């Protein structure tokens, strides 16, 4: 440290060169610092705009999603489904003679309960 100080003191020309260099260096550092600061600010602003844009997109998508849900709800109206089933798919209600009701015999279940358990 002392050695370096001694060296500078013994060369006045170098000292003035070094002083202007230091000033340039400081100026450069300040400029770089400012650029970093401004760049950061610009970046923050840009990100802010991006966030704003994405939030708008999110809102639009949510709105679209809701609209689609409601459209699905509209399309699933029983009247429309019945019309498609009958007119487009040719579906019909089962006739009386096509229906067989399967009913459990009274006491049937009870008899089953009394069955001995399998070994």
């Amino acid at each position: 440290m002392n050695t370096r100080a001694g060296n500078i003191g013994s060369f006045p020309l170098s000292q003035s060169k070094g002083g202007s260099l230091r000033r340039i260096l400081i100026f450069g550092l300040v400029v770089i610092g400012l650029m970093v600061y401004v760049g950061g600010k610009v970046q923050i602003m840009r990100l802010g705009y991006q966030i704003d844009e994405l939030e708008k997109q999110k809102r639009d998508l949510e709105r679209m999603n809701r609209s689609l849900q409601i459209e699905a709800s509209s399309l699933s109206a029983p009247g429309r489904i019945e019309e498609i089933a009958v007119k487009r798919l040719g579906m019909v209600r089962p006739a009386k003679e096509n229906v067989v009701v399967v009913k459990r015999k009274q006491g049937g279940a009870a008899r089953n309960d009394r069955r001995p358990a399998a070994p």
Partner: protein
Amino acid sequence: MLMGVGFVLVGLRLVHLQIFERGDLTRRAERQQERLMKLESKRGNIFDRAGRELAVSLDVESIFGMPNEVENPRSVARELGRILRQNPADLERRLASDRRFVWLSRKVDPAKANQVRDLDRSAIGLLVESRRFYPKKTLAGTVLGFTNVDNKGIEGVELWYDKMLRGTDGWVLAEKDARGRTVFPGGHGFQYQLPRPGKDVTLTLDEVIQHIAEKELDKGLAESKARGGVCVVMDPGTGEVLALSVRSTMRGRAAFNPNEPKQYRPEEWRNRAVTDLFEPGSIFKAITAAAALEEKVVHPQERIDCSTGSIQVADRVIKDSHRSGVLTFTDVISESSNVGTIKVAQRLGKARYYQYITAFGFGRKTGVDLPGEIPGLVRDHRLWSGVSLGSISIGQEIGVTPIQMAAAYGAIANGGMLMKPYLVSEVGDPNGDEGVKFAPMTVNRAISEETSKTLRRILQKVVETGTGQKAKPAGYTAAGKTGTAQKIDQKTGLYSKEDYVSSFVGFVPAVSPKLVIVVMVDSPVGAVYGGSVAAPIFKSVAESSLTYLQVPPDDLGGRMLLVSQ
């Protein structure tokens, strides 16, 4: 010297303004600089009993203009008029006004909103608002009702539950700049109150049964060329209304669509199941029978002489539609004999009979949660004339609403308890907290369980062998009563010989009823009897609804397979 005086004067004025007029000027400045903006709360949704959406709120955009910033109102109005399909002259008039803010079009379609946005006019802006939308269109339109442009309930459930559905509007205190533009200050001291969304309402209505009731009623009305009709489907055990269909065909349009309320007249969206009374006619004989059986003034097998075909009641002769001979009381009801019914009612006397009329809920509002309900028309028995007892026993001289009729037959079906009909089962927050559930409510006991059972058998005979055979659903037992009531001719004030109300009220299955169904057809043309006009509608509604509810058929004859496991 002069300058000194000037400074003193200015100083005094400063003191006057800063100290003495401070309060007033501050208020004026705030008034000029601040704007309280309303934040509209989101209206709650309406669901059917299975959680299917029947009424929802959609975010849509409204278009506004700032006339003080419009340079050429005519050209802007022309452009907007083309997009919004509105009269350009009207838009121009609004844009040329001396106001700072004018609505140009409220709650427009998204496509139109985008086109307006693309115009990129600084004096034209868009604001998001909430619009009511009914995705199932005409389904249950008269029950749901509708809202106005400010989302306020105007009719139906939307009106009855308006306070709960609306929520609480919020506000924000914004600032205005020199040109009157709104600036949100943000940061510390930013005053606002967020809006609280409205609560969701869940109905007892079932979308599918509602559709069935509407479809079958429409079909029946078209066949009978009737002026209108009502079909109510109710759970007799709880009083839950599962379907309530009201139709008016007077203007050639059968159904009310709440998405376009301005296209309809009040008589098309009024819920006539609760707001209008009608003379029930023979369906009221079930009430007479219930009173007579409960008071034990008649036995179901007692033979009553109806051979004369007419009966003198005070100064009036009341006739049967056909001469019947001697009938058991069961047959009096199943054949719908006026003579037999009046003879039995006379045994009861006015006071005792009146007691049962009120016990079944007639003459007072049922309390159903719909606006505009009327109590019907039942005069106190002390005001009855000599002919009143006879007339009322066959459903004349009395006014009832279809919902009252549903509740009364519900009592016959469920063992004698009169239940309060209701349409909303739950009101809850959209996030699921703080829900309020509505439980079935018993009004009073109308008749004993034993009487109810006896009467159910009598009414089953109406469908099996009596006047209501066309009401018999395939595969199921049914019980009910037909009614054909003459309407009063508005010109003469007498009973009309051409204008009738045809009805059928009953329940299915007859032994353990799951549904009470009221069908009322107003002014059918051609066939007018309830057994021919209303009974087939009852049959179709009952068949489809029971199949949908997966109620096992109880009357299939040989087509029942018995298994032991």
